[in-house]
């Protein structure tokens, strides 16, 4: 039994909380530990790009690309070695294009959050002759 669960049961035993509250707290605790375990095992590993085209001239073509997320992580880490002057130039170019983004703020922690958010992302492009699907797995 872990400390948090014991603490809840102690609070219940001493009458600080009701049985109903204890049940809710334990359920929340289980949800929390479950989510942590899932994030470790179910980390987003790959970016998948599926393209299905049916060109009238060339005929049907299917493309299935699997790119490791580690590649994205390594690429972002590589931004750390960009000289400060070049970073400013990149930021200025992004601002010029109307993108308010500072590459100095890209850190491994931010990147992990971003990748975690990508889990929910699915891009579907459905054209007359082309279907494109981008998702993470």
């Amino acid at each position, binding site marked *: 039994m872990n400390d948090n669960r014991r603490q809840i049961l102690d609070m219940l035993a001493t009458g600080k909380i009701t049985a109903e509250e204890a049940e809710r707290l334990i359920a929340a605790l289980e949800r929390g530990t479950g989510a942590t375990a899932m994030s470790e095992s179910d980390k987003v590993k790959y970016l998948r790009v599926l393209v299905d085209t049916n060109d009238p001239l060339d005929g049907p073509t*299917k*493309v*299935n*690309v*699997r790119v490791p997320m*580690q590649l994205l992580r*390594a*690429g972002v880490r590589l931004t750390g*070695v960009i*000289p400060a002057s070049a970073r400013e130039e990149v930021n200025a170019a992004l601002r010029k294009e109307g993108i308010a983004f500072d590459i100095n703020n890209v850190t491994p922690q931010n990147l992990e959050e971003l990748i975690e958010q990508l889990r929910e992302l699915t891009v579907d492009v459905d054209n007359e002759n082309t279907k494109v699907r981008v998702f993470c797995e």
Partner: protein
Amino acid sequence: MKGKILPPLTASVHVKPAGWRFGIRLWLPLFLFWLLLLPLVVLALPFLFVAAVIFGVRFWASIRGALALLSAFHGTSVEVERPSARVFINLH
């Protein structure tokens, strides 16, 4: 994928032209390519170091980053299927 510090050492390529009963399966030893490339990289290191100093780039961090980028290619796969052929490439 965690803990991979080397670039992909092998690649498997599967090509199956239309009408063929069995395709061609190739196992490519990429490590031979890296071994061939290694002396060239060693020769280029002093020049890269000078360039890094001139342009204000952190040299060893760049080398580590480039190696991490190469090693991140593990698990990449590309599959293209056309009426004429089907090609599948996987980096290990």
